């Protein structure tokens, strides 16, 4: 599946900040780290701040820090601030046969959507950060040790 850009930026920002909640990072630092648009990221960070997931730290060396609950906030919570993950709605059809076909297609697409929702709402920020740390540790492990 493909997420909208804002959702993707929001997830990257939240996971980056939640990975070290005591440290603050500027929008510029995060944009540079991931090669993403600073303007777009800044807008996303403002939306995340309004949602209470990040807070701006003023003053010298200021930036953003994660202030949500990493064990209760899920990836779906973040994504839903920017887009809707919902079942295929289908369109009105004129004949019974077309209606049955549309209903069948709707069932198939609903299966996919239900799986997507279940996955995203079962992965907390804390879990995603830990998965990333494990992945990094495995990647950095020497070949024979």
């Amino acid at each position: 599946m493909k997420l909208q850009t804002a959702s993707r930026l929001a997830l990257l920002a939240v996971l980056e900040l939640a990975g070290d909640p005591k440290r603050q990072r500027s929008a510029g630092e995060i944009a540079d780290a991931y090669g993403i648009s600073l303007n777009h990221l800044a807008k996303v960070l403002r939306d995340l701040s309004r949602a209470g997931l990040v807070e701006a730290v003023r003053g010298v060396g200021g930036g953003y820090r994660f202030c949500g609950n990493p064990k209760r906030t899920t990836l779906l919570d973040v994504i839903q601030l920017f887009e809707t993950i919902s079942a295929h709605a289908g369109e009105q059809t004129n004949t019974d046969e077309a209606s049955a076909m549309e209903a069948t297609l709707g069932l198939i697409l609903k299966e996919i959507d239900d799986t997507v929702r279940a996955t995203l709402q079962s992965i907390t920020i804390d879990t995603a950060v830990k998965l990333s740390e494990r992945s990094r540790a495995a990647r950095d492990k020497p070949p024979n040790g």
Partner: protein
Amino acid sequence: MDTISTETVTIRTANATDSQAIAALDGKITGLAKPDYWRDLIERYRQRAQKRHFLVAESGGMVLGFIMGEVRAWEFGSPPCGWVFAISVEPDRRVSGVGTMLFEALCDRFRENGVATVRTMLARDDTLIMSFFRSQGMMAGPYIELEAALD
């Protein structure tokens, strides 16, 4: 060795005297009373204990939770792997590491059994337990559960 201790919680193999507590915990969560089911299951698992594991988490003489699983081989074309069939923790003792202790203890036994993969299956809308398994590093595997009504 079948016991692991931390300061307050002990993980050990379930025995017949645990069946009432296990049935009560399961009944509290599912709303279904199945005392015979749990008593028989504990007994079956004790009879073939090598690759079947039924563990309880205990503190101060009270069962806080349980986990059960076994090594299965070649079903659905899968090489031997450890399956987690059930896990349950007292609601007011959750998010305190008990579930993690139970899961890790079962995985340790699976490693001793020589398998390198642990699997489970759960309802798609059971977000709580799915979140737990994901917090233990589990991700969706290469299999899909399919079903159909038999009319």
